[in-house]
């Protein structure tokens, strides 16, 4: 009977299939996560990560890996507040700072207290959680943007206070007291000591950060798959409905704040111990932006997403310091982007061949006019770069090369914007050829020469491209506002 069909929505039935087709990465992660329980995956991850110090003796690499784990754990805490409970907390870094300074007070000669590490870390977690409660209380009445502004203010105030509280008059004290060490920070903190073992090398701290990350992932996964996680999600989705369904929304909000703050505090304490010192500049807005980039890049609310986001945001800038690696990443990124953006797929190889031919023609023409003074770029001793350098032509004078790079950069921006406006497939194909040539030209003559600027530019472009093709982040679930 036709009545049976009512409400059986075929669109809904095929829903999961369509999601899977659209997001293959998410599908793979989804399948993998169902094959083994979460703790098993975490153990595998930890074991794989633990072999890193055996593979390399390069302290820099291990330090970067430790940073990835630390910021990953920190971003997990932010994810609880922003991704789960939906509270836009821009003062999060302050709790990280509170944890770090608490560690400094409790384990250095600054006050002269040297507590055992275990007790210190517990105390730090509790203290930061309490500060989270404190900030959570006035935030109860605030929604969305207003909450963001208030918490941002809190973060800035924290940094300012830590910088300037160097001469504070306290009743009963004859002279002003230095409470925070000011911009010079607090130095010579105790290292981590657990059961008579003292962390001394980069590798030791790498393992500590790894344990921190794995424990945090497990804790947060469990929290998410519980009554508390469901209530936080409900709060994010619809506060009024959550309240009407019996969830004490005010208490839940404060709890989310405090949980995030406690996690941040613990991370901050470990950070301080690792660095051996704390400075106000460790807790600036840059760090906040990086953290948000991590969770947005990975996909709000996704646990493996945070890991990937942290890997990209923390590791990529450091990798880019090396010109050879940076070049590889750049060209690989460009080709992958082309493959993703151009359909049908065979257009990409054709385009690359066309660009190569175009470059040869340009080279032939320009070298035929000797009065210009242009020549192929000098070889640098890296096989693939030398091929590109002999293919490209630029002014022989290094100063002029830089200028040509600047002019090329401006032209590239205009051409690039033009390409995005062209709808006709073949017209776009033709315009893309000189655009790509110009891209290589600008990279080789200008960008690869100034690693510090390029790093930021590179990350910016990476984020923009990623957000265009994956608006919900790498592993994020689609989220709707109103349907």
């Amino acid at each position, binding site marked *: 009977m036709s009545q049976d069909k009512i409400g059986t929505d075929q*669109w809904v039935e095929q829903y999961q299939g369509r999601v899977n087709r659209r997001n293959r990465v998410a599908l793979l992660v989804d399948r993998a996560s169902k094959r083994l329980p979460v703790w098993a995956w975490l153990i595998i991850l930890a074991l794989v990560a633990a072999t890193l110090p055996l593979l390399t003796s390069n302290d820099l690499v291990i330090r970067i890996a430790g940073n990835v784990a630390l910021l990953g754990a920190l971003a997990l805490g932010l994810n609880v507040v922003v991704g789960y409970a939906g509270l836009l907390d821009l003062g999060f870094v302050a709790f990280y700072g509170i944890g770090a300074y608490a560690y400094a007070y409790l384990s250095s000669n600054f006050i002269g207290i040297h507590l055992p590490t275990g007790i210190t870390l517990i105390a730090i977690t509790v203290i930061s959680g309490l500060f989270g409660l404190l900030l959570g209380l006035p935030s109860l009445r605030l929604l969305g943007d207003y909450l963001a502004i208030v918490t941002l203010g809190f973060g800035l105030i924290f940094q300012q206070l830590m910088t300037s509280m160097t001469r504070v008059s306290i009743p009963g004290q004859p002279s002003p007291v230095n409470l925070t060490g000011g911009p010079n920070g607090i130095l010579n903190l105790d290292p981590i000591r657990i059961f008579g073992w003292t962390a001394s090398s980069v590798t030791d701290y790498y393992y500590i950060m790894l344990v921190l990350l794995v424990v945090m992932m497990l804790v947060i996964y469990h929290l998410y798959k519980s009554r508390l996680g469901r209530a936080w999600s409900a709060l994010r989705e619809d506060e009024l409905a959550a309240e009407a*369904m019996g969830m004490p929304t005010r208490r839940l909000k404060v709890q989310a704040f405090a949980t995030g703050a406690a996690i941040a505090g613990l991370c901050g304490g470990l950070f301080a111990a690792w660095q051996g010192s704390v400075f106000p500049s460790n807790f600036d807005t840059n760090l906040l932006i990086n953290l948000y980039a991590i969770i947005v890049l990975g996909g709000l609310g996704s646990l493996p997403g945070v890991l990937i986001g942290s890997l990209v945001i923390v590791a990529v800038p450091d990798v880019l310091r090396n010109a050879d690696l940076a070049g590889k990443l750049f060209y690989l990124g460009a080709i992958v982007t082309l493959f993703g953006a151009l359909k049908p797929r065979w257009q990409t190889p054709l385009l690359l061949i066309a660009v190569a031919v175009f470059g040869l023609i340009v080279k032939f023409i320009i070298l035929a006019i000797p009065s210009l003074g242009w020549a192929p770029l000098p070889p640098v001793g890296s096989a693939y770069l030398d091929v590109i350098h002999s293919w490209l032509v630029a002014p022989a004078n290094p100063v002029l090369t830089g200028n040509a790079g600047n002019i090329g950069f401006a032209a590239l921006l205009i051409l690039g914007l033009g390409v995005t406006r062209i709808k006709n497939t073949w017209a776009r194909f033709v315009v893309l050829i000189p655009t790509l040539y110009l891209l290589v030209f600008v990279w080789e003559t200008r960008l690869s020469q100034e690693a510090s600027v390029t790093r930021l530019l590179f990350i910016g472009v990476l984020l923009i491209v990623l957000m265009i093709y994956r608006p919900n982040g790498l592993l994020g679930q689609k989220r709707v506002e109103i349907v």
Partner: protein
Amino acid sequence: MPLIELQDVTKRFGGLQVVNHLSLGVEPGEIVSLIGPNGAGKTTVLNLITGLYRPDSGDIRFDGRSIVGLSMHDVTRIGIARTFQSLRLFLNMTVLENVMSAAFLRTHANWFDIIVRTPRFRREEAQIRQLAEAKLAFFGERLVGYRHDQPAYSLSYANRRRLEIARAMMTEPKLLLLDEPAAGMNPNETGEVTELIGKLRDELKLTIILIEHDMSVVGGISDRVIALDHGEKIAEGTFDAVATDPLVVEAYLGHDERHNRK
């Protein structure tokens, strides 16, 4: 003794008298429909009962005790659940999570239980999962099987209305407030909802206050109908009596202007 009783309740928004000295009572096991033209104050009555608004004067008594001033979640705790006229589901959560989330007040796992996954936590979790599945099974095959793990936003409109009712049922209420449960449904689905509301009373012994514009629903299941206009009760009684009441007809259609002009 009535399960819920409004005693001379008044609510003003600025100069606008939305609910005006309204008194009504609902006996246990009864289905009472509130009808009236748009803006008559029907939804405001629900909002007053659930604690979203506080009455300016008068008292609201549930099970013999006053519930004025209780927060919304406390009102839910003592056994009043509602659905919303403009559907307020947790759209980005799965169907099952939507229902399970409404068990918050009756679950007791603390932080330690949750993080360590104690047996107590697992037991409780399995329990509410089972309960939630049972609530969803109440709607026949509409919300079972593969739909459990789908996000709520992927549901059809009618299924969203059903899910809202299931979520409200999960709080184990004694009194269920339904705000236009048949809005946006086709005649077949409307018939189904009517049947369902009857089932809620007969099988689960719920007391129900229903706001509905669709008179086939109101006429089909109401034990009693109360008509409101400008926040005042203008008629009360069986559906047939209220539907033919001249005041009610006038509230819906306006009085005949031609007679006045002469």
